């Protein structure tokens, strides 16, 4: 898994690509987010449009990242989840935990609307 970072105002966009599973560095996501929090970057959009597969390890990393950001007063929002990712969110009743958007722009704008 690769993480590419970009910014839009005070929102950090993390574009994930590849496979989020054990042995594919998905465990790097949570430390990466904690590092952002230390820099006071607490509004994060995770773009999942290029994620080919994510296992429970990847989901755990997303959940822990969202928790850390919310504990710091920020939030994590999901952009471009694939159908398979949406199926998991639905079946695990996580649609209320992860606010999801069809595009990165919409996810970024949602932070501005909530300010």
């Amino acid at each position, binding site marked *: 898994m690769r993480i590419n970072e970009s910014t839009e105002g005070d929102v950090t966009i993390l574009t994930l690509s590849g496979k989020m*599973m*054990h*042995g594919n560095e998905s*465990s790097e996501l*949570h430390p990466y987010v904690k590092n952002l929090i230390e820099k006071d970057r607490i509004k994060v959009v995770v773009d999942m449009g290029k994620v*080919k*597969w994510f*296992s*429970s*390890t990847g*989901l*755990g*990393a997303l*959940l*822990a990242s*969202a*928790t*850390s950001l919310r504990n710091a007063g920020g939030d994590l929002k999901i952009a471009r989840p694939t*159908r*398979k990712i949406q*199926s*998991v969110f*639905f*079946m*695990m*009743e*996580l649609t*209320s*935990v992860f606010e999801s958007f069809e595009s990165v722009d919409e996810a970024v704008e949602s932070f501005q609307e909530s300010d």
Partner: protein
Amino acid sequence: MSEDVEYTIVITGFQEQFHRIRNLVHFIALQQGVDEQEADIIERAVAEACHNALFHEPADPGDPSFELEMHLSDSAIKSVVRNRGAAFDFDDVEPFSVDQDFMAYSEGGLGIPMMKRLMDEVYYERKPEELNVVTLIKYINDQKKEGD
């Protein structure tokens, strides 16, 4: 269960073939008449069981493998994943809840709760010679468990 014909498919899986096996499980589920979302769910739960077999202290860490057996009928898709390795802490795992502290999953541990949530029935057996057997059942075509 209704009276129906049962087919069995056995696959030996390795890490390099993981995505092909996932795709095959998805395809088989669709062929059994489930919709895309349900096929996604079955694929994911079976993938988690295979993932555990490959990554949870396998007996041969240099060449981990598993055997996936699929029993197909008009009423259910039953998947059995066997591997040799450390025992899984299956029965003591707390069910997944959105109200719990998600930090507990920062380094894994969500695989078994996910399997239990996604499938209708999940069983684990520890057999001699370090053999783990995980059975996952999804009822299809509106079939219910006996007693429902």
